């Protein structure tokens, strides 16, 4: 393998490949930062151009775009509270408060270091642990996916620890929205109100833009006279770079744990960065000695989500390269590109075409290294631009972008209408002190939970009681244990702090 890696490194480091990858990382970053242009779409847009390239350059370019896009989502999350891709949802929780406190640049640089570092850890896992990890991933069947989503829902408890009832109501609301459209199993038409476009369900991106971005823009617009002209505060800070660097690497445990969570969630087909970043956020908060600072601008929150989401990129490549099963939607497109290049994912990629496979892995490593530089330079300029533009120009421009973005999801006006309605509801909910996190979580997890539940039940039909399948498989039992622990932890913490206060 050493020889292969060396040969692959030499193959990647040609001027042409480096230029393609620089283009990929930068283009991906910009696409990721634009709400509505997801990593999936960015990769799909570039695929036709890679047909004319040789396989290594083509794959390296696609990989670089994917990495860049997942990272780019952090920019809009931090600066305007809008996850550019669903993988940056959690980045808004602490990144945007940091920006509001004038620490936007620090948040961006922290995200850069965490993303690039997370991606590097992910790549190392991909190169050295692919085969055993892919085997573990296959052990997860429908019942396990059901329990994973139930575990995901326990994140509500940490997101809304101050008001559990509102958190649970939000989660239930999100689950309900996720049911609009054709049932994933059975094909029933649900809650479409007779509109054909709703057969495809409500688009997550529309809801994200509506819930996160619009209420903030309305808030800024409403306070315009009282505020300074700029939408984003800047406080002159010395040594931002160094401080951001230390944010990530001073507490390596948070960073490494988040990257590992990201890589593992990425490996599971059907779960991607949108779930990984929230799980990592949850674990970071749980492990923290000062959990109450999360959500108020704690850089560790940004570290967790960004390290996790960039590690999912490489995690998603594990089942793709070893088994030919894409771990995430963008990986599915890279799969298509591989096939059209005449390569067949699976064991062959590690024998007859191993030179291409290892070159692709090495190129991911290089792309993440590039992100350090491109991220700092690009982040600095985006930050400057956003802070220079007066709010009365910035706010309408961003609203305009959100309309373009939600239209571009699948060129459908319905997605724009949903986004605007979502914005209205989001504004009301914000006034009523509902956290948007649980709603979005419900929306993401709903379809996966439903599939897991129904498929699991169908699997169990040959048993005398089909439901037992959910409680008898070893991984399911382990997951149930984790869920009980995860749901009980915030309650325990609450009780403990009450008890201690009582002592004093």
């Amino acid at each position: 393998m050493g020889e292969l890696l060396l040969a692959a490194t030499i193959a990647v480091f040609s001027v042409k490949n480096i230029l393609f990858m620089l283009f990929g990382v930068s283009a991906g970053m910009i696409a990721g930062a634009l709400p509505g242009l997801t990593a999936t779409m960015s990769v799909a847009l570039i695929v036709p151009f890679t047909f004319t390239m040789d396989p290594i350059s083509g794959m390296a370019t696609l990989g670089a775009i994917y990495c860049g896009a997942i990272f780019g989502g952090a920019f809009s999350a931090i600066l305007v509270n809008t996850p550019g891709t669903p993988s940056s949802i959690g980045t808004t929780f602490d990144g945007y408060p940091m920006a509001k406190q004038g620490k936007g640049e620090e948040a961006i640089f922290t995200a850069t270091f965490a993303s690039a570092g997370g991606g590097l850890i992910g790549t190392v896992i991909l190169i050295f642990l692919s085969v055993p990890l892919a085997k573990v991933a296959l052990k997860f069947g429908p019942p396990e996916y059901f329990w994973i989503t139930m575990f995901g829902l326990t994140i509500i408890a940490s997101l809304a620890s101050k008001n559990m009832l509102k958190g649970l109501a939000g989660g239930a609301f999100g689950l309900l929205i996720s049911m609009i459209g054709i049932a994933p199993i059975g094909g029933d038409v649900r809650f479409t109100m007779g509109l054909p476009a709703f057969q495809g369900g409500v688009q997550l991106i529309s809801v994200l833009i509506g819930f996160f971005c619009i209420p903030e823009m309305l808030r800024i617009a409403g306070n315009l006279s009282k505020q300074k002209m700029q939408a984003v505060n800047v406080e002159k800070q010395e040594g931002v770079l160094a401080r951001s660097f230390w944010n990530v690497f001073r507490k390596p445990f948070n960073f490494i744990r988040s990257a590992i969570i990201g890589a593992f969630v990425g490996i599971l087909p059907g779960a991607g960065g949108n779930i990984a970043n929230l799980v990592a956020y949850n674990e970071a908060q749980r492990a923290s000695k000062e959990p109450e600072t999360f959500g108020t601008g704690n850089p560790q929150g940004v570290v967790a989500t960004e390290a996790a989401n960039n590690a999912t990129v490489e995690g998603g490549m594990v089942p793709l390269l070893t088994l030919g099963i894409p771990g995430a939607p963008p990986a599915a497109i890279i799969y298509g590109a591989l096939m059209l290049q005449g390569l067949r994912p699976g064991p062959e990629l590690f024998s007859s075409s191993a030179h291409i496979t290892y070159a692709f892995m090495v190129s991911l490593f290089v792309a993440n290294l590039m992100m350090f530089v491109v991220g700092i330079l690009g982040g600095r300029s985006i930050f400057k631009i956003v802070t220079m533009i007066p709010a009365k120009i910035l706010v309408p421009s961003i609203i305009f972008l959100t309309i373009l973005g939600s239209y571009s999801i699948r060129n459908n006006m319905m997605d724009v209408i949903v986004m605007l309605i979502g914005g209205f509801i989001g504004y009301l909910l914000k006034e009523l002190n509902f956290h948007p996190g649980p709603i979005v979580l419900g929306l993401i997890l709903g379809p996966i939970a439903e599939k897991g539940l129904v498929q699991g039940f169908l699997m169990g039909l040959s048993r005398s009681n089909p439901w037992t399948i959910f409680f008898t498989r070893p991984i399911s039992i382990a997951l149930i244990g984790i869920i009980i622990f995860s749901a009980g932890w915030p309650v325990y913490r609450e009780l403990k702090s009450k008890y201690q206060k009582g002592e004093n």
Partner: protein
Amino acid sequence: MNKKLLSILLVSLFLVSVLSLNVMAEFPEKAINYNVCFNPGGESDLTARAQQQPLEEVLGEDVVIQYKIGGGGAVGWSELVQAKPDGYTVAGFNLPHIILQPLVRDNPGYETKEIKPVFIFEATPNILAVHKDSQFKTLEQFVNYAKENPGVITLGGSGSYSANHLGTLEFNQAADIRTTYIPFTGSGEAVPALLGQHVSGLMTYTTMGIRHSDEMRVLAVAADERVPAMPDVPTFKELGYDYVEGAYRGMAAPPGTPDDVIEKLAEANLAVNEMPSFKNKLEDMGFQIINMGPEESEKFVEDRIEYYKKILAEVGLL
């Protein structure tokens, strides 16, 4: 010169100019939007992407692929039937999807006959595949086990009311067995369930059998003849089961598109199908190349409507 002659002259002049305009304005004279109604990376996207470049060569204009995803294709097709019928908006269409959705949904936003087929260019027959470590080495063992243990065998496949779903029901009938069909969202999503041995087998497409040939054993293929990419796999018919099923994919235009435009697009599709590079690439991936022009496709769709109505009625889904 009398008035009559003048008017004849004028009319003929007008006619000539119109005709020459028609000759000048030969379709296509601008980019063609080719809508893909399924997720990027799936079979429909893959084959449309493979067509894109050769189509551009044949037509001499850009072919722009746009994604109109959702509802198992219904979102894209409901938009297609509303689009301007000038041939500059076309979409990929799939059988049996465009037949089954209007049959089982109240309002999918389109009717089967509104989707005007241009060309059916490829098909993926169903296959019955099991894990390579499975106890079933032959179809006979599989059927015998299913007979002795009714309802115990689970078969994963792509979606509800799909070729995989209907195929499982048809095979159950043909072999007089009872298996449980478990729908997954997309053919790719069903594969991990088989590799992790969470289902006993897959009713999936030939393409999956080729992609994962190292990890799965294909017991039989539901085609009329053996598929070139898997010459050792027998057909169900050879083994005595009257069961042929699969998905067909093609290009369709909005209702009312002029026949000469449809003809032009169909010729381009045919030309692409005849390119050895295109044909070989698709056949290696497990696709069957099919050449069905507009009339033939329309006739085929009509036949399939009757066929699926019968099947759905037989299994009690209609």
